[in-house]
């Protein structure tokens, strides 16, 4: 599988005058796992949020599976899409947040079936059957009736992963999925992500877990100051970085 599923060209993003992304190019193949590393404030999360249109880009274009996100190209004119069509694109892109963002007034199972039933109008019974399988696959087959407040951080994040997967996304985006977890709960979430990667899911993971990146990623991208400074197989990038800022960053996190 060598076909490109995610492609971003020359992404620029400013927040209140400060440039967070300064021309990022990115290409991810179907089934590939890309880990994005970098010091905090380097624009990793913003890049991820630009890919699924949670943030609008100031310049540049994002394609996912051949569609331009948030726009439509017609006769050389880039036309902004109405919200309805943007939502249609967004539901093809799964996202897992640092702070889980589970719906607290719904049980784990209700969280997982919400998208399929409400957005895709899937019959409730079949959505429940799929959701139960998904919850079992993240090791929470018995916690479907628990509310988020009754779950540990690691369990919440695994429900969040199941919720995103329930929409059968073409790509899964992970925004620091283990950064809000107690250290002893990180492993269970990474295990689920490892299995997901092994099953051939396309994943873009913003993370601080260098070990996970080295082991699971097909490629690693390292961002500094709103640019991708290094990108390539983890063995190369993590071992012999050429960029001095990347080198100092890796020296700090690998120490």
């Amino acid at each position, binding site marked *: 599988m060598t076909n490109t599923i995610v492609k971003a060209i020359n992404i620029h993003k400013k927040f209140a005058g400060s440039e967070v992304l300064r021309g990022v190019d990115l290409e991810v193949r179907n089934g590939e796992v890309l880990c994005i590393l970098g010091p905090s404030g380097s624009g990793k999360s913003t890049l991820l949020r630009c890919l699924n249109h949670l943030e609008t880009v100031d310049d540049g274009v994002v394609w996912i599976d051949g569609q331009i996100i948030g726009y439509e190209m017609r006769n050389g004119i880039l036309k902004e899409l109405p919200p309805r069509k943007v*939502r249609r694109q*967004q539901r093809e892109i799964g*996202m897992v*947040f640092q702070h889980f*963002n589970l719906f607290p*007034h719904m049980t784990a199972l209700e969280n997982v079936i*919400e*998208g399929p039933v409400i*957005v895709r109008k899937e019959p409730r019974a079949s959505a429940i059957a799929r959701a139960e399988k998904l919850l079992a696959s993240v090791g929470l087959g018995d916690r479907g009736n628990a509310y988020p407040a009754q779950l540990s951080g690691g369990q919440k994040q695994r429900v969040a992963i199941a919720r995103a997967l329930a*929409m059968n996304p073409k790509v899964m985006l992970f925004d620091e999925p283990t950064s809000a977890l107690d250290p002893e709960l990180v492993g269970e979430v990474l295990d689920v992500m490892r299995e997901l990667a092994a099953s051939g899911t396309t994943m873009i993971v913003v993370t601080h877990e260098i070990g996970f990146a080295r082991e699971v990623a097909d490629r690693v991208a390292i961002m500094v100051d709103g640019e991708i400074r290094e990108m390539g197989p983890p063995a190369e990038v993590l071992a012999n970085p050429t960029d001095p800022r990347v080198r100092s960053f890796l020296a700090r996190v690998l120490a």
Partner: protein
Amino acid sequence: MASEAASSPQRVEVEALRQRSYKIVRLRHPGRWAAGVVVLVLLGLLVRAFANGQIRWGMVGQFLTADVIVRGFGTTLLISALAMLIGLTLGTIFAVMRLSANPVTRFVAWLYVWVFRGTPVLLQLLIWFNIALVFPRLVIPGIYTGRVVDVVTPFVAALLGLGINEGAYMTEVVRGGINSVDQGQTEAANTLGMSRFQTLRRIILPQAMRLIVPVLGNSAIGMLKFSSLAAAISCTEMLNAAQQVYFVNGAVIELLFVCAIWYLGGTTVLSVVQYFIEKRYGKGASQTRSRSLFKLPFGLGSANTPALEKAQ
């Protein structure tokens, strides 16, 4: 706590503590007892004053279940319920307008709140009651043509006045509730592809309810009482009915007391209902919090609620 000399533990005392051979003397509160007695005496004097005052208590009991009064209370309940419904609907609509990206709708919503919160309800009721002076005829092209006085009866004027006024307060309440919901919830709904309306209805409003419902309970209690202002525009709710009776038989205080009893009964029932609704909307929140936040509002149970701080 165990004995007076516990601060310098000697061997004998340590031994006594270990074998639990001691007696605990709890701190006494003579002050509380004294204050309680004083308050009870004062309360007794007050009750006695009213019992011996010039009130025909028999008439109070007799009119408590009189037809006019009961029917009046029915109207009071109806006005309150419908006005609350109007208020909540308007409040939700204008709250969403106030949070919209469109500056025009934002401004109109602000204007609505500014006007209707900034003028007295009684004044608004009088204006609605006399609206026919401004618009004598109501014309909906092709559907209806008629005189406004026939449409805006005192009952309708009361509904409009109370409901629209309540809506202005509800706008702020609902807006606060919506704002209290974490931005991440909207983002999660977006990534599932939910529309703005779906997000509002399924994700944001149910969570905003936790903040809105306690206020809503207080508003409903307030509305039950404020609906008595409709008596001023000759809408025959309970207070107006009572006035009509005492204009004839002169039993002013007796009938006012009858009204007070009915209002008290109504607000008490509402308080209990509010307690149970709050319990339902507390679900999903951390459990310790939902349990300690919502107490029966009469001061049954413990008066101090330190559990709130602890839960955080």
